[in-house]
């Protein structure tokens, strides 16, 4: 088994009484694209700054290719950072900005210029070498910041919400470009974001963080389909959370009424939360027969919202509101106040421990 590029072992960090990082363990492989995802204050930026060396962990180790870098100052670490506000040097031209890293590491001027030219060409910035950062647009500044970091050929590139200052359209384009760039360079990226869509679009693996802890690590589809905790289910995408109980005979009883035999015999007795994605629920007219396998809930339609490509249906079942995403045309029986039947394939039922 190849040793991982980056190993974070039981890293903790406190600011006064506030536990910013709590026993963080994470392995990052060569060339991997990792997204640190979580709400603000979850510790993702603290973790990134700890990796970069601007903060020092209270406990734990940080290893790159087996070497402990936890005590090294930022300038001796074999990684580079793209800052949220880009942090381009305002008194230097684009070329001087990009040459800065190679020059400080002792590269000759002519060699540094050659490297910087190649990095700028890769970013499509050939014509901008003599401009000052403030003469560039936000997207161009973003590219300069990337060129300035990758010209050093780091083993690991840290990105601190680098797209958050761009407008939506440009952000979408940069997401794809970043992903391409990362494939092309083969450098591992650790990307901090609070935008789940960004994380799902780009990352090989997503690290979901909350309150200084890692909630779940895994590929995007896995995290979406099989969230490990309530928090992950709620944070990534939309989810209906239904309280339920599994009895000794393996029957699932919903708090809102209705029961369902469980396929998975390993599920032990106790309280659970069923996590049901809106697109997995199907809404059918109340007259539909009971022949379909899977879960079946009698509901009342509360509201129908047309979203263009699909409709969002809000229904009530046993006192709890559920969201259902429905593709296809508007129909007569889809009107508020009418009864209907919501069905769910057994495979789409996902349980996590504990009541919601």
């Amino acid at each position, binding site marked *: 088994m190849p040793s991982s590029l980056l190993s974070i072992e039981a890293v903790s960090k406190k600011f006064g009484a506030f536990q910013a990082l709590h026993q963080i363990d994470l392995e990052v492989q060569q060339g991997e694209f990792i997204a640190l995802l979580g709400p603000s204050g979850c510790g993702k930026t603290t973790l990134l700054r700890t990796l970069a*060396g601007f903060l020092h962990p209270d406990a734990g180790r940080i290893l790159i290719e087996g070497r402990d870098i936890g005590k090294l100052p930022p300038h*001796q670490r074999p990684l580079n950072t793209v800052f949220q506000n880009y942090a381009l*040097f305002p008194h230097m031209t684009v070329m001087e900005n990009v040459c800065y890293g190679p020059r400080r590491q002792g590269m000759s001027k002519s060699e540094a210029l050659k490297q910087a030219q190649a990095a700028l060409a890769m970013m499509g910035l050939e014509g901008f070498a003599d401009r000052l950062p403030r003469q560039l647009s936000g997207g161009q500044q973003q590219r300069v910041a990337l060129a300035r970091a990758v010209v050093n050929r780091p083993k690991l590139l840290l990105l601190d919400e680098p797209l958050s200052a761009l407008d939506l359209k440009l952000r979408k384009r940069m997401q794809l470009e970043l992903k391409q760039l990362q494939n092309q360079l083969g450098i591992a990226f650790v990307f901090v974001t609070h935008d789940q869509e960004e994380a799902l679009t780009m990352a090989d693996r997503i690290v979901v963080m909350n309150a200084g802890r890692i909630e779940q690590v895994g590929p995007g589809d896995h995290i979406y389909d099989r969230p490990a905790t309530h928090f992950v289910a709620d944070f990534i995408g939309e989810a209906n959370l239904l309280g339920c109980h599994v009895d000794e005979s393996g029957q699932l009883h919903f708090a809102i009424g209705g029961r369902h035999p469980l396929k998975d015999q390993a599920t032990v007795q106790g309280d659970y939360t069923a996590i049901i994605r809106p697109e997995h629920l199907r809404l059918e007219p109340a007259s539909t027969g009971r022949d379909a396998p899977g879960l079946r809930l009698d509901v009342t339609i509360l509201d129908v919202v047309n979203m263009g490509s699909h409709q969002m249906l809000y229904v009530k079942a046993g006192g709890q509101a559920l969201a259902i995403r429905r593709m296809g045309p508007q129909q007569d029986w889809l009107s508020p106040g009418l009864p209907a039947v919501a069905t769910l394939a057994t495979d789409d039922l996902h349980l996590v421990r504990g009541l919601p």
Partner: protein
Amino acid sequence: MISRNLRPLLLLLAAPIAFFATFFVAPIAVVALASFATDAGQFTWSHYLRILADQYHWEVILATFRIGIVTTLACIVIGYPLAWYMVRIIRLKTWRRICVILLIVPLFTSNIVRSFGWMVLLGRNGLVNDMLVSTGIVERPMRFLGTETGIIIGLTYILLPFIVLAVGNVLAQLDTSLEHASCDLGASAPSTFWHITLPLSLPGLIAGAIMVFALAVSAYVTPALLSGGKVTVLSILIFQQYSSVFDFHYGGALSMVLLILTLILVAMAGRIRGKHLDGVA
């Protein structure tokens, strides 16, 4: 033709322009004209020729600018780290505020009082000499009063706040992520200071230095009190011409020389700023 919209604007500007003309332009014009006139009101170069020809005047001019430059350098060397301490090192807000107050309060006191204070401190039996002798740094008390060193010490003390405030202001506004980025790109702390922090704080440093220099070469009270009549600077010479000799023409010529030499040096400092920091706010 002045357009209709411009007229109210000009009316608003009239008062400040009149004030500026009366109290800034007119006095300089009067002095400049006097410096080119004989007692009979004839045009003459003679006052300037007299200054150029006289070796004594050159010595005074040299002493004046030597004191000005050394004072400015001393203020930079002491003031920059002090500003750094106040902006970057102090974490406690209250303590920072106290430091700023301590720095500014002396500005409310008269120069004369503070210069007298230095006369006491720098005297043969003053606090400074007591300390130097008792710690064994010097064997016998040093002579500060009546030397350029004494004047430089006094001026440095009085003018220090200007440079600390100017530098502190730019340091406080400097985005620390730029320094982080520099470290991240492989620059050590000294290298980051040299390549990033210093160039970006240069506008404040130069603005402060220009202020200190201009005030140092034109200072009268501090040099007059601390020189004990043994060191003469241009401002003392000018004062003598106006108050004792009553030669307004010659005093005017000396004033113009001081003004022009100062402007030349300030322009040179401004060029440094323009060259290295084109357009950096």
